[in-house]
């Protein structure tokens, strides 16, 4: 539970209302209690947005989201090719990729935390670094136990690497001590040697001991003996061909030798060397003395295993883990969430790990990606949640929905939805329509996404929104091209009507370049076809191809695709053709024209305003009279021309 203080709100009044959004909450002050009329403004006129997931807005974490998106998509794509032995190696590589991305993010945030100018943000960054570090710790352990599935023997080596990776002061301390003039007299010398032994880095410990031997000859003998013990400790090296039983046997021998030295009080003279020997024997009390150097219970666990049960089997891990935790904490403190997660991992309870991580972390990123990877390792049974999808899909959907709430990262979310077989497509359809489209370029990207997935409804809806915007801004060409793209006949009709209306008002077309080049798109709607053809008629007339123009005009009128309101214009357009010196319309065509004219005259549209109607009617009547006269004259000429001999 978190408390958020909203600036500017009068908390004494205790009057607020809120509403939930997909990733955020809107809050504002109200004044329901006020008895007086609302003449005064409410005290706080703002609406506040409270975001649940602040991580998404962090600059550095964005790199994490982007890089891991690339890895995620890559993993889904190679899924089909993953077979057999190489499968495990590939999956381990993917896991290491994820981890290196987390580490890179951690490094960068650490730099920023150090460089932070004010302590508050410095603290925030530092806490973020520790969260990332914990995430990497958990992921690494999951990789060792679940993905790599190391058997007994190599298991311990992996665990040693795991611990070494997460305790970084050792190297700096080593450099420090070695760099000093008299290493063995350095104040942290024994501390360093102890840490090296605790981490199983016996070669380096031996080197340090030899320095001590050189410095103080009295303990040279003891150092040499301890050094020999260190050298002869049997370890399973990766290329080694010895079996586990052989190793176990050798190790038993070596253990007994160490025990013997301790019994003989070989190291009694130097308490430091004695405690080192005890550690190497796996003595719990000696290890617990080094609590400060160990720093956490899992370090204690691994060291204990190294020196008492190096051939531990994976299934036995959880027993040692539980006892290590108890011993280390010693009843003083209770386990933290991280400890519980690690314990669950040692118990091989994947569901518990994921559940605890979901609770502990504020963002779905970690659990979504880890679960997806484990699912590829075929480790999650189809654990059906009550609304139908399985855990992997649930987590991916949650994560992707969170991405869509972000103004910029929505593009990543698309790919995540793609790989959710049950509810992914539906979720994407709902989300993608709600992305605000401020520029055409963004709209094109969104449309490309929809078209690639055959989401025709969404394409149509988005194109309609864009076309409507274009019409409002008087960009008729854009509007038309959007409606053509959406194959939206109704809208194309609307835009064509606008074009025609503009023509009626102005007497010329506004956007010839578009209309002239419609091509097959003309067939989308009747009105559009009419527009294209009408323009073609104008072109014919301009090019003096009069017979073509005439037959086109006639076909426009007879084919019924011309809107009623346009008929008078079409008829008037026939006038100049009729007045030409040559006879353009044949007798047949003239009869057709006359029929159209009478058809039109008998069914003239009704005008609303009576005053205007009078005037309009007069003008129209004059025009129609002129037309009738021209038609009659043309008829006469045509009959004569057709009646006379051909070729005259």
């Amino acid at each position: 539970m978190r408390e958020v203080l909203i600036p500017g709100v009068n908390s004494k009044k205790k009057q607020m209302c809120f509403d939930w959004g997909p990733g955020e909450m809107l809050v504002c002050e109200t004044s329901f209690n006020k008895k007086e009329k609302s003449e005064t403004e409410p005290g706080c006129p703002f609406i506040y947005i409270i975001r649940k997931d602040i991580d998404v807005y962090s600059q550095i974490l964005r790199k994490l989201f982007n890089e891991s998106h690339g890895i995620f998509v890559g993993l889904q794509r190679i899924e089909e090719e993953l077979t057999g032995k190489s499968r495990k190696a590939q999956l381990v590589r993917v896991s290491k990729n994820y981890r290196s991305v987390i580490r890179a993010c951690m490094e960068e945030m650490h730099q920023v935390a150090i460089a932070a100018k004010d302590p508050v943000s410095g603290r925030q960054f530092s806490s973020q670094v520790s969260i990332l570090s914990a995430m990497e710790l958990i992921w690494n352990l999951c990789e060792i136990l679940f993905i790599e599935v190391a058997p007994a023997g190599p298991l311990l080596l992996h665990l040693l690497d795991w611990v070494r990776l997460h305790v970084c002061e050792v190297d700096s301390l080593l450099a420090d001590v070695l760099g000093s003039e008299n290493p063995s007299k350095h104040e942290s010398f024994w501390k360093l040697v102890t840490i090296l032994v605790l981490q199983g880095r016996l070669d380096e410990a031996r080197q340090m001991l030899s320095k001590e031997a050189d410095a103080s000859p009295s303990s040279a003998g003891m150092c040499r003996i301890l050094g020999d013990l260190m050298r002869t400790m049997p370890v399973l090296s990766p290329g080694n061909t010895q079996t586990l039983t052989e190793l176990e046997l050798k190790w038993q021998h070596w253990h007994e030798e160490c025990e013997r030295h301790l019994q003989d009080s070989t190291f009694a003279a130097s308490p430091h060397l004695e405690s080192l020997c005890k550690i190497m024997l796996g003595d719990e009390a000696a290890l617990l003395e080094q609590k400060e150097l160990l720093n956490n219970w899992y370090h204690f666990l691994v060291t204990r295993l190294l020196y008492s049960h190096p051939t531990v089997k994976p299934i036995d891990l959880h027993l040692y883990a539980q006892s290590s935790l108890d011993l280390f904490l010693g009843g003083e403190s209770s386990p933290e969430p991280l400890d519980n997660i690690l314990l669950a991992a040692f118990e091989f309870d994947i569901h518990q790990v994921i559940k605890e991580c979901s609770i502990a972390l504020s963002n779905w990123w970690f659990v979504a990606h880890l679960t997806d990877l484990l699912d590829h390792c075929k480790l999650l049974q189809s654990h059906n949640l009550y609304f139908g999808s399985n855990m992997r899909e649930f987590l991916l959907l949650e994560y992707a929905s969170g991405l869509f709430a972000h103004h910029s990262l929505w593009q990543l979310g698309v790919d995540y939805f793609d790989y959710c077989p049950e509810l992914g497509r539906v979720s994407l359809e709902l989300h993608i329509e709600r992305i605000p489209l401020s520029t055409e370029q963004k709209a094109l990207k969104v449309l490309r996404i929809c078209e690639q997935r055959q989401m025709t409804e969404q394409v149509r809806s988005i194109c309609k929104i864009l076309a409507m915007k274009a019409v409002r801004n008087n960009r008729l060409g854009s509007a038309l091209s959007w409606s053509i793209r959406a194959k939206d006949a109704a809208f194309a009709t609307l835009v064509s009507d606008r074009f025609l209306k503009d023509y009626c008002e102005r007497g010329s077309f506004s956007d010839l370049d578009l209309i002239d080049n419609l091509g097959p798109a003309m067939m989308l709607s009747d009105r559009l076809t009419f527009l294209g053809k009408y323009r073609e008629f104008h072109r014919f007339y301009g090019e003096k191809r009069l017979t073509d123009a005439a037959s086109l005009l006639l076909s426009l009128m007879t084919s019924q695709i011309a809107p009623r309101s346009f008929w008078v214009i079409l008829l008037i357009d026939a006038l100049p053709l009729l007045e030409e010196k040559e006879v353009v319309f044949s007798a047949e065509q003239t009869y057709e024209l006359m029929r159209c004219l009478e058809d039109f005259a008998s069914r003239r549209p009704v005008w609303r305003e009576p005053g205007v109607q009078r005037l309009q009617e007069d003008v129209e009547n004059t025009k129609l009279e002129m037309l009738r006269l021209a038609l009659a004259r043309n008829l006469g000429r045509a009959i004569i021309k057709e009646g006379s001999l051909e070729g005259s």
Partner: protein
Amino acid sequence: MEDIYAKFVSQKISKTRWRPVPPGSLQTADTFAAGSWDNEENYVSLWSIGDFGNLDSDGGFEGDHQLLCDIRHHGDVMDLQFFDQERIVAASSTGCVTVFLHHPNNQTLSVSQQWTTAHYHTGPGSPSCSSAPCTGVVCSNPEIVTVGEDGRINLFRVDHKEAVRTIDNADSSTLHAVTFLRTPEILTVNSIGQLKIWDFRKQGNEPSQILSLHPNQQHVVATGGQDGMLSIWDVRQGTMPVSLLKAHEAEMWEVHFHPSNPDHLFTCSEDGSLWHWDASTDVPEKSSLFNQGGRNSTFLSHSISNQANVHQSLISSWLSTDPAKDRIEITSLLPSRTLSVNSLDVLGPCLVCGTDSEAIYVTRQLFS
């Protein structure tokens, strides 16, 4: 094998441009500008590719590109161009055109000049000050030409407050890109795939017809389309593209001829790939991908690039009509497919590109 360095920069990159090197100098490109989009706060930033003389242990230069400075930009960065060595012109989705000035001494950027209402909508339904995104900008000292979604072409001159010339309603649909053919002629491409040439010397607001140029010069224009097709046009002759090449699977956002090696063409696309087209004829065997095409009136063009200064005696291999003789080799330069590659720029042996996965890729060995 080219070394290509990627860096994640926490913002989706819409444009990247190399800073031009002074003519006659032997320097290679070392600085580029990048603009972001789709953020609540967008930035125009300047990056350097680390030619500080730092040598790492192998004797090579540091690979990563470093941020020099950035400045907040209002609205998405729709287009970016270097006006000269110090000034960058940015076109915004709010219809504003800004000139930024770079101060090398203290590594900062500042706003030098701004035309806030360069592009706007006027219409019965739009409010009186409705802005329109400015989609393309091109510079040729001292002039700046901008085009926008309102179909308007503006000609600005630096240090003049108002536009020197405006052609309203130059196009009924959105103008997507503009380039200079020769000053004072520009070529624009609109969203229904038409190229128009405009001559600013003429007074009218109509595009000039295709001018007849000097017969020995060749003006080759390449356009990339919404369906990923690459078309090569010869501006001298005819209204059809000389060739249509099926290229990417999604919109091609930018097309660039290499400025000094015009036999090389670079395209980047929404499908997340960046291709290098090599039409140089010295290597004998290459696969032939030449395609003769007719007119395709339904493709929508997005970007144009103009091949300038071709030798008079050289016949451009792009215009050749013999598929057997001239072959084009295509290589994909990015190591893995990402989200859309929005922008690219080439200068000398260096290439920079920006993607929607919030990463900038730089390579310094294009022709190795």
